[in-house]
C-alpha cells in the first residue's frame, strides 16, 4: 500500500525507496530547490514563451468570478484569449507582448487579487500525464468490473456447468488484460519495494491480485465453482481510486510549491566588463560586483561599494524601521533595497553564502518532518506482515487439516482478497482529499501529507509580528497633524519617492490634489526635497532634517515634513497595518482554548502595542532567529505542540522546529518551503479554521481505520473458515469502501 503508506504518509514512507517511479514531490523543497535553480538558468525566458501568461487567482470561487475575470482580461487591448481554471484557481492568458504587471492592475480594478506565475515552472507535464494515466486505468478497470460483475451475477444466481464455465472464460478474457494493465502501478511499486528489501503495502496487494487471478484461471480450466475475477478487478478499481485521489491531493500541493517558487526568480544583475547582465544567483562568485535596484531584494551577501539608500530588513529580523545604508556597510541576502541604487561587492558565495545557509535550514526542516510517522504509516507497518502471516497460516492450516492443496490455495487467496486494504487504501486519501479541498476553499494550501495530523495536535500558536500579523506595510497613523494647506505639498513630495513611507503618505492623502513643486530631488537614504512657492520643503528622516530622534519608544516609524518659514518640522507617525482577519483569528484561537504567543524581532514598544491591540497576553520582543527557534524548542520540551505562523528568514528555523507551521504567500521562499501550509490570500482568519478542520480530519481518519478493522474482524474469520465465496468478498469489499468514502465526504460540509 504505498498508496496509503507513501501517499498519505508523505516523505517518510517514500524515502527508503527512491528508485520508485519518478519521485513526485514528497517534499516540496526537493521540487522547489532545483526548480528555482532551473528557473534562474532559464533566465526567465519562460515568461515570454508564446506570449502565454499564467496568473494565480487565490480569491476566485464562482461563476461570476470566471466571467468577470475573463471579460476584464479579453477587454484589455492585446489580450487574445483568457481562460480561467477554477480547480487550480489560475487564469491562462494568451497575450503576446504583454507583461503580467500590466494585467494584474486590470484584475485589481475588478477586485481580484492576482499573482504572476512562471509558465515554465508550472507546465508540470509529468504530473499531468501521471494523473491522466491513473484516470485511464480507473476507466479500464471500471469498465471491466461492470462487465465481469454482470456475468458474475449470473453465476451467483445459479448458472450451472457449461454456462458457468463459459461465463468464467469470458470473465477471464476481460480480467486478465485488465489486471495486467490496471494493476501495473501496484506491481511496479511492489517490485521496487521488494528490491529495497521491505514489505510495502503494495506487496500484499500485488500478491492478492496475482494469486486471485491465477487461482481463478486454474479453477476455470478445472470447471470449478468459484472464480475471483470480479474480486480481483474490483480490488484494482477501488485501490486505483484511492491512489488517484491521493495523486490529486499531492499534485495540487506540488503545484502550490511550484507556484510559490515561480513567484520569485533568484537572479542578480552582475556588472561585468561588457555592462550589466542578469545571471543566476548560484553563479555569483566572491568579488563580483552586482547592482541592486531600488525596490529589489538583495540577492547575495555583500559590501556596499557605491550608493546610499535605506534597507528594509523586516524579512530577516522582523524590524519595521528601515535602516540607512552607505558604502562600506554589509548587506545580507534577503534584505530589500528601498530608495537608491546600490552597487555591492559579493563577499559570500557558494557554501558560505546565505543561500547555502538557507538550504541547510530547509534540510533541517525536512529532517524534522521526516521524523513524524503518520497514522497511515504506523497502520501500514503493522499491516503487511500480519496479512502475509495470516494467509500463510490459513494455507498451512487447511493443508494440515484436509491435505487438499487446491482448497488450501483457494482459501489463502480468499484471505488475501478479504484483508486487502481496499477500505484502508481509501481511508486516508479520501479524508486528505476532502480536508485539503475544504482548506483550499478557505485559502490554505497543504504542502505536506502529514501536516493535517500534526495540525490536529496543536495546542499553542506562536505568531511572528511583521509580515504575519501585520502586512509589513506602513500606514499613516493620523493625517490630522498636517495643516490643510500643507497636505498638497506633502502629497507632491511623497509621490516623488518609492519609499514605503512615502507611498503610505501618498495613499493617505490620495483625496488631495498635489501641489506644483520645482527642483524635486530624492536623497537616497535620507528623504526628498523640493521648492514650493520659492520655499524649500523637505520630507525625510529626523537626522537629515537636523532633529534629535526621540521615537525609539514609539510603536511605529516616523517621517518628518519641514517647510521653510513654517516653524518646527511636523512629525508624521506611521503604524504597520494589521493583516485582515488577524484580530478575529487570534480571538478565535483564544476562544478555542489555545495558548497564543507573539515572538518578534522588532522593538519592544511596537510589539507591546500590537499585542495589546490583539489581546495577546504573552509577547517577546527583540528575539533573534536562534532565539525564536530556541523558544519554540523550549515550548516543545515543556510538552506543548506548537504551530508556528511566520514569514521571514528569521522565522525559518522556528517554522522548521515547530510541530506544524503556516506562512503567508508573501513570505520569503525559505519560510514557505519550511512550512507545511501556505496562506494564498491576505486574510489570516483561515489559520484558526485550519486547526478545526485538521482536528476533524484526523478524527475521520481514525474512524475510517476503525471501520476497516471492524470489517476485517467480521470478514477474516469467514475467509479463514473457508466460507468466503466470491459473492461475499465482493459485497464486503464494496460496502466497506463506500462506507469509508462517505465518512470522509462528511468533512466537506
Amino acid at each position, binding site marked *: 500500500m504505498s498508496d496509503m503508506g507513501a501517499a498519505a504518509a508523505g516523505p517518510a514512507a517514500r524515502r527508503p525507496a527512491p528508485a520508485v517511479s519518478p519521485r513526485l514531490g514528497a517534499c516540496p523543497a526537493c521540487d522547489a530547490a532545483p526548480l528555482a535553480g532551473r528557473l534562474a538558468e532559464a533566465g526567465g525566458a519562460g515568461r515570454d514563451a508564446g506570449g502565454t501568461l499564467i496568473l494565480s487567482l487565490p480569491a476566485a470561487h*464562482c*461563476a*461570476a468570478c*470566471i*466571467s468577470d475575470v475573463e*471579460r476584464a482580461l479579453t477587454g484589455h487591448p492585446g489580450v487574445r484569449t483568457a481562460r*480561467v*481554471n*477554477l*480547480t*487550480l484557481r489560475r487564469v491562462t492568458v494568451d497575450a503576446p507582448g504583454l507583461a503580467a504587471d500590466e494585467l494584474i492592475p486590470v484584475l485589481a480594478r475588478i477586485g481580484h487579487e492576482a499573482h504572476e506565475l512562471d509558465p515554465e515552472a508550472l507546465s508540470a507535464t509529468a504530473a499531468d500525464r501521471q494523473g*491522466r494515466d491513473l*484516470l*485511464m486505468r480507473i*476507466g*479500464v478497470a471500471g*469498465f471491466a468490473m*461492470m*462487465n465481469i460483475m*454482470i*456475468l458474475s451475477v449470473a453465476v451467483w444466481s445459479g448458472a450451472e456447468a457449461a*454456462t458457468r464455465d*463459459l461465463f468464467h472464460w*469470458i470473465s477471464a478474457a*476481460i480480467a486478465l488484460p485488465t489486471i495486467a494493465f490496471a494493476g501495473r502501478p501496484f506491481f511496479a511499486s511492489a517490485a521496487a519495494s521488494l528490491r529495497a528489501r521491505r514489505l510495502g503495502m503494495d506487496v500484499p496487494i500485488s500478491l492478492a491480485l496475482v494469486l486471485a487471478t491465477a487461482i481463478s484461471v486454474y479453477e476455470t480450466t478445472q470447471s470449478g465453482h468459484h472464480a475471483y475475477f470480479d474480486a480481483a478487478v474490483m480490488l484494482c478499481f477501488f485501490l486505483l481510486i484511492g491512489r488517484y485521489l491521493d495523486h490529486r491531493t499531492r499534485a495540487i500541493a506540488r503545484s502550490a510549491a511550484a507556484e510559490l517558487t515561480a513567484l520569485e526568480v533568484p537572479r542578480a544583475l552582475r556588472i561585468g566588463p561588457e555592462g550589466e547582465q542578469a545571471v543566476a544567483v548560484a553563479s555569483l562568485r566572491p568579488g563580483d560586483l552586482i547592482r541592486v535596484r531600488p525596490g529589489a531584494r538583495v540577492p547575495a551577501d555583500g559590501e556596499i561599494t557605491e550608493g546610499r539608500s535605506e534597507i528594509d530588513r523586516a524579512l530577516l529580523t522582523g524590524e519595521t524601521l528601515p535602516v540607512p545604508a552607505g558604502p562600506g556597510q554589509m548587506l545580507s541576502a534577503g534584505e530589500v533595497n528601498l530608495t537608491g541604487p546600490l552597487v555591492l561587492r559579493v563577499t559570500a558565495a557558494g557554501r558560505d553564502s546565505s543561500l547555502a545557509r538557507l538550504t541547510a535550514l530547509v534540510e533541517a526542516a525536512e529532517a524534522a518532518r521526516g521524523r513524524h510517522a503518520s497514522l497511515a504509516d504506523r497502520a501500514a507497518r503493522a499491516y503487511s506482515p500480519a496479512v502475509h502471516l495470516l494467509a500463510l497460516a490459513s494455507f498451512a492450516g487447511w493443508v494440515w487439516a484436509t491435505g487438499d492443496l487446491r482448497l488450501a490455495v483457494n482459501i489463502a487467496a480468499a484471505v488475501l482478497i478479504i484483508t486487502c486494504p481496499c477500505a484502508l487504501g481509501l481511508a486516508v486519501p479520501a479524508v486528505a482529499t476532502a480536508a485539503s479541498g475544504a482548506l483550499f476553499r478557505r485559502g490554505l494550501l497543504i504542502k505536506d501529507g502529514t501536516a493535517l495530523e500534526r495540525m490536529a495536535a496543536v495546542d499553542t500558536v506562536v505568531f511572528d509580528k511583521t509580515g504575519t500579523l501585520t502586512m509589513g506595510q506602513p500606514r499613516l497613523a493620523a493625517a490630522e497633524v498636517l495643516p490643510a494647506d500643507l497636505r498638497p505639498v506633502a502629497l507632491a513630495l511623497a509621490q516623488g519617492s518609492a519609499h514605503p513611507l512615502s507611498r503610505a503618505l501618498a495613499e493617505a492623502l490620495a483625496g488631495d490634489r498635489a501641489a506644483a513643486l520645482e527642483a524635486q530631488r530624492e536623497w537616497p537614504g535620507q528623504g526628498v526635497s523640493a521648492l514650493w512657492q520659492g520655499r524649500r520643503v523637505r520630507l525625510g528622516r529626523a537626522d537629515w532634517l537636523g532633529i534629535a530622534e526621540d521615537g525609539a519608544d514609539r510603536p511605529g516609524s516616523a517621517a518628518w515634513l519641514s517647510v521653510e518659514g513654517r516653524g518646527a518640522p511636523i512629525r508624521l507617525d506611521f503604524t504597520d497595518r494589521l493583516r485582515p482577519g488577524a484580530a478575529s483569528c487570534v480571538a478565535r484561537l483564544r476562544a478555542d482554548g489555545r495558548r497564543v504567543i507573539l515572538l518578534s524581532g522588532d522593538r519592544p514598544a511596537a510589539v507591546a502595542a500590537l499585542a495589546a491591540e490583539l489581546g495577546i497576553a504573552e509577547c517577546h520582543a527583540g528575539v533573534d532567529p536562534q532565539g525564536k527557534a530556541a523558544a519554540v524548542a523550549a515550548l516543545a520540551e515543556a510538552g506543548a505542540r506548537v504551530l508556528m505562523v511566520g514569514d521571514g528568514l528569521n522565522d525559518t528555523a522556528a517554522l522548521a522546529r515547530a510541530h506544524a507551521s503556516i506562512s503567508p504567500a508573501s513570505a520569503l521562499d525559505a519560510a514557505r518551503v519550511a512550512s507545511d501550509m501556505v496562506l494564498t490570500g491576505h486574510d489570516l482568519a483561515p489559520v484558526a479554521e485550519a486547526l478545526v478542520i485538521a482536528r476533524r480530519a484526523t478524527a475521520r481518519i481514525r474512524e475510517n481505520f476503525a471501520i476497516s478493522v471492524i470489517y476485517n474482524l467480521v470478514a477474516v474469520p469467514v475467509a479463514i473458515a473457508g466460507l468466503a465465496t466470491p459473492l461475499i468478498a465482493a459485497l464486503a469489499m464494496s460496502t466497506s469502501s463506500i462506507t469509508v468514502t462517505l465518512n470522509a465526504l462528511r468533512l466537506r460540509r
Partner: protein
Amino acid sequence: MEILAILIPVSLGLGAIGLLAFLWALRARQFEDPKGDSERILSDEWDDRPRPD
C-alpha cells in the same frame, strides 16, 4: 441459450463504447477543470450565440 452468443458481445460492445467515450473525454482534457465547468454552466454569457473561438 443461443441468445447469449448475441447478448454477451452486445453488452460488451456497449460497455466498450462507454469506455471509448471516457478515454476520448480524457484525451480532450475535459477533466482538467471540473469545478470551473460546473460553474460555467451557470453563466448566461454565451446563451444567445456560441462563443467565438
